[in-house]
């Protein structure tokens, strides 16, 4: 499976969840794990370009596919991805536990709706839980991310984006 552009050897144990594979086998601990039943959203990653819950997939199912995690949005030292930059500017996080999931969901949301309405923003982040911010600053961050994305072409915006699968 390809993770953030790099090919990794296959996971042989079918019981390994994609979330645990990313964290424990590949050391990509940016993908967080909260509820492990699809409710909190903090394990959200991109699967062939579309956001999915990594706690609800088996690692073997990602074989031959492309997975992007929060670590893949910006290389160390390079400018942040527009969505990360927007969360930073708008204080879209406090403790940060939910943030990787929000960021990946919002990357998916903006691929689907580059200029989201307020309703689309609320719908788009409704599947992610945050215990700290009260969501107002996250809503602002999504708005800002949409502005920033149109100014900065993102490296992750290419083929295969926004296809609902």
């Amino acid at each position, binding site marked *: 499976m390809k993770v953030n552009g790099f090919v990794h050897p296959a996971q042989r*144990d*079918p*019981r*390994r*969840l994609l979330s*645990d594979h990313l964290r424990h086998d590949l050391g990509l601990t940016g993908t967080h794990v909260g509820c*492990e*039943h*699809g409710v909190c*959203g903090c394990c*959200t990653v991109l*699967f062939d370009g*579309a*956001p*999915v*819950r990594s*706690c*609800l*997939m*088996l690692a*073997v*199912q990602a074989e031959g596919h492309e997975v992007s995690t929060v670590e893949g949005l910006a290389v160390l030292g390079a400018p942040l991805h527009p969505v990360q930059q927007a969360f930073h500017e708008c204080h879209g996080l406090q403790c940060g536990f939910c943030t990787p999931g929000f960021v990946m*969901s919002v990357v*998916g*949301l903006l691929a*689907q709706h580059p200029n989201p309405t307020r309703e689309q923003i*609320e*719908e*788009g982040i*409704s*599947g992610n839980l945050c215990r700290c911010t009260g969501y107002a600053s996250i809503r602002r961050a999504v708005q800002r991310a949409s502005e920033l994305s149109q100014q900065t072409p993102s490296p992750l915006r290419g083929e295969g984006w926004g296809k*609902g*699968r």
Partner: protein
Amino acid sequence: MKPPPFEYHSPSTVEEACALLGSLEDAKVLAGGQSLVPLLNFRLARPSHLVDINRIPGLDAIYERDGGVAVQALARQAGVEDSELVARVCPLLTAAVRLVAHRVIRNRGTVCGSLAHADPASELPAVLLALGGHVIARSARGDRVIEAGTFFRGVFETALEPDELLVEAWFPASPGPFAILEESRRHGDFALAGVVRAADRLALFGVAPTPVLADPADPARGLRPSGDLEATPEFRLHLVRTLTDRAFAA
């Protein structure tokens, strides 16, 4: 490991999948995994075998058939939500699928998986029932058409046999007035109670072990919904009456 031990199979054709389902003891189909994997993670389900159908090509079509829309086993809920064909022929299905969970879940979850799972609070089984649609079940023994009215048997229970794969669901067109209304604690949660109107037909969900047809003039007659921490039986009956009034006022 969170899920209990199971043997994993990844057939590449429907025939292969049916052969596996027909020969293996205690096998479960893995489609979108949005209901099954949570059950595995909590060890509430302990199947001996998982038959993952995700690598079967050509099983994700959404197409027009017999004046309605046919949705194959691997068509994701998000694909149905975005389908122009579905919006044109069966806008009730478009409206209903938007109420299922959240977009990120719908990117993986399938329409057929939702029907096969048969959660009593699920929207799509009630839509299939209100419209009078059917599903096609395939096994090594052949194909069988199961009408919505006989498909849903109980809580998480359908007329599918263990060796059958649900290959397609068919939703008749919804040209007349339609509505799907529900009440849930949070956006995207399963409904406490909900109603589906398709012209003059009414189906209810979340208030009985399966979705049920009801009389729009007296929708709560004969219902005995269960109570839980989220809603009392009385509140569920109240919701049924109020939501029905609204669905038919439009």
